[in-house]
């Protein structure tokens, strides 16, 4: 198992304009070891991997692979040195065959002409090394994601990889496929490979990894032997809080004026996204959705808002059953959704702040009942002041605003539609402290005005501070509701960590 260090990173630093992504991070992987890399959003996991694989260049620190310094400027360098990465979105060509994908770029041949028999044979050998038995002629895209990942791993090995990085490999796999993947990983471990396993599924970390490294906010929290780190401690380290601290309960825990039901869901589910969820939100409530990264919170929101098609389940708005098949339907029913990915799902980058602000309201009214310019200006002035949006004026393209201000405009967009319920998915991400406080005040105000809120956040304290009730999700399943005076950080963390009370 453990041997001399295969890969050592010391003091890695990386900064981008305005943000320090990594600061003094150490990372060590040994040959014949499965090493899990964990951290919440913004922890720096993906940046670290990108530095390692040559996509980014580190500003500080050094990398050594098998004792030799490694300077990877482009991905090909890292690959040549023996570091291969398999991403969640399999970076192969789905329209070509398995054998071809394994051999692409280095196909065996004579005088420049490819030898297909050799290509197939080669592929069969590469797959056999993993204990796989799939048809090398099969089209890659016709295989399940799990098998595609295996082919990607086979290609990586073929390239004489010594270190294999698996970036969120299990996100789209079912239980059996995960087990198969783990079997392959263990087999490779026996063969002396070093494996970096980036994931957010804690059960899996405990099932297959030997060591764990935790990052938080771009810094190293620590490296631990999996066997010696209890679950709850792990979650605590990831979230940066100590369990022992008692946290004050919600200030408004006393009030629970449950109004009429605004939105309710029964047995909501979608393959690969969510298993059977029940949910009820009433007027004046703030329902917090808590859970670790990948637990299914955003997926829930997307199903509620009609972005994704649900496989089963019933939705009711204000008590009446609704079809709700598109965001358009949702908006017309009085729902609003402020997405966490504002870049691709939120802003209309080249349109003005004003246009971005009024677009949902205008869409709700239809194309013919145009909002008068004076009304648009009034709305803009109102929200720019109310949310303290920093912009030269309302006509500049929204992409010129800072991330935080863009988020505020998006918030204003939805508030302008005067919804009955608004889903806020990570509304305070990437926003400065002052603005965060403003948004929290806003949530309180919405509550008193009788608007229902579903609040998704990765920061437990935020959930505790702002919610009247919390629903905890873990690995795409609901696992409990916490309300009243039980709504505190400790309880939430325990629910999010799950597992047995004894560590595995």
């Amino acid at each position: 198992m453990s041997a001399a260090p295969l890969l050592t990173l010391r003091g890695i630093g990386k900064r981008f304009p305005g943000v320090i992504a990594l600061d003094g991070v150490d990372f060590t992987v040994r040959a014949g070891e499965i090493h899990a890399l964990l951290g919440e959003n913004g922890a720096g996991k993906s940046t670290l991997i990108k530095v390692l694989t040559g996509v980014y260049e580190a500003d500080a620190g050094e990398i050594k692979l098998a004792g030799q310094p490694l300077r990877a400027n482009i991905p090909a360098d890292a690959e040549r040195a023996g570091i291969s990465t398999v991403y969640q979105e399999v970076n192969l060509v789905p329209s070509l065959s398995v054998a071809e994908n394994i051999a692409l770029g280095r196909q065996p041949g004579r005088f420049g002409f490819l030898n297909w028999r050799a290509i197939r044979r080669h592929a069969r050998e590469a797959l056999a090394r993993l204990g796989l038995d799939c048809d090398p002629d099969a089209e890659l895209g016709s295989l399940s994601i799990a098998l595609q990942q295996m082919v990607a791993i086979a290609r990586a090995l073929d390239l004489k990889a010594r270190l294999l990085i698996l970036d969120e490999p299990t996100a789209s796999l079912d239980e059996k496929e995960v087990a198969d993947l783990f079997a392959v990983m263990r087999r490779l471990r026996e063969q002396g490979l070093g494996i970096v396993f980036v994931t957010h599924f804690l059960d899996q970390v405990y099932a297959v990894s030997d060591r764990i490294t935790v990052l938080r906010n771009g810094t190293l929290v620590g490296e631990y032997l999996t066997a010696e780190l209890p679950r709850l401690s792990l979650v605590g380290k990831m979230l940066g809080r100590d369990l022992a601290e008692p946290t004050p309960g919600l200030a408004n825990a006393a009030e629970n004026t449950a109004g009429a039901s605004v939105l309710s869901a029964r047995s909501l589910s979608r393959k690969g996204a969510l298993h059977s969820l029940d949910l009820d939100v009433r007027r004046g409530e703030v329902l917090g959705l808590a859970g670790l990264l990948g637990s299914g919170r955003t997926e829930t929101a997307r199903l509620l808002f009609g972005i994704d098609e649900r496989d089963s389940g019933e939705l009711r708005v204000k008590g009446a059953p609704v079809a709700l098949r598109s965001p358009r339907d949702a908006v017309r029913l009085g729902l609003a959704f402020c997405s966490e990915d504002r870049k691709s799902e939120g802003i209309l980058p080249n349109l003005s702040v004003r246009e971005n602000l009024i677009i949902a309201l205008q869409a709700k009214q239809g194309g013919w009942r145009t909002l008068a310019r004076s009304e648009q200006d009034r709305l803009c002035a109102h929200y720019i002041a109310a949310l303290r949006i920093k912009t030269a004026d309302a006509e500049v393209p929204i992409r010129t605003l800072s991330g935080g201000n863009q988020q505020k405009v998006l918030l204003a967009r939805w508030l302008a539609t005067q919804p009955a319920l608004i889903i806020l998915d990570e509304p305070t991400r990437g926003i400065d402290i002052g603005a965060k406080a403003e948004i929290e005040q806003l949530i309180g105000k919405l509550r008193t005005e009788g608007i229902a809120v579903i609040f998704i956040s990765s920061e437990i304290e935020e959930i505790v501070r702002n919610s009247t009730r919390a629903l905890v999700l873990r690995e795409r399943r609901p696992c409990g509701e916490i309300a009243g005076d039980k709504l505190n950080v400790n309880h939430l963390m325990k629910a999010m960590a799950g597992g047995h009370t004894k560590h595995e």
Partner: protein
Amino acid sequence: MKPTLQRRLPQLTTGAIFAALFVTAGLMYEGFFSARVAVNLFTDNAALGLTAMGMTLVIFAGGIDLSVGAVAGFTSIFVATLIEQHHVHPALAALAALALGGVFGAGMGAIIHWFRQPAFLITLAGMFLLRGCAFWLNTESVGINHPLYERMADFAWEIGAVRIPLIALVLAGGLIIGGIIAHYTRFGRNLLALGGNEQSALLMGLPIGSAKVWVYTFNSLCATAAGLVGTLYTVSGNPSTGIGLELDAIAVVVIGGTVLTGGRGHMLGTVFGLLIFGTIQSILLFDGRLSPWWSRIVVGVLLLAFILLQRGLVRVAGKAK
């Protein structure tokens, strides 16, 4: 079903359609089922075939080239002008044309790759540019009177009673070369990878920049060859040669089962597509009743059918996962 067979399904479908068409025509028209008609399929469509062969590779890579007709036209009048007005030997004229064609293609490929401009727009501009240049050289066609041309026009390979003209042989040779490039060279496979998923191809370390430039270069060379073949066919050079050729070539490629977005297809499909095209033309000729413009509509319908088929297959594949 064996996976290889399943992946070749579109091409096999095209092949089956061709067989059905040919057999039906053979049953309907006197004299259709003859070696002469079969050979004519090659001879009459040589220019289209060569163009479609090059276009197949471009489309494999996810690109498109709308300038091929103009390249053929320019080559046609360029070569004729050199031979007739400047007394250049045909071989030299042909080489000069190929050189120009290659540079032109490389130029377009470079602009498309380096400046990240949409291929359809750049090649459309290229089409206008060369077509205009062709007419600049001469607005009328120019007959070619050169002993070498006469000899080549007469040349044929005789197998028993069957006479295969030089042009048909050139087409056959071109298709074989195209097939070898597409399926037996790394370059060809890189093109398919590029068209299948450019991002992945990049991450896999494939030389996509040079692949792009080379495929457009090669395609323009094929179009140049098509123009040269055209001069052999009509023993003259004409700046109007090849108007509409690009659309026909694209249609042939798509009907052959190659996906227009790239990454999927087989040169054999293009061969079948070409044969279908030629058969439709032959049928219209034999029939004499239907206006020749029905071929455009039939091609359009086949195009629609295959595009919907491709779309359907993609959807089914996505849901099956």
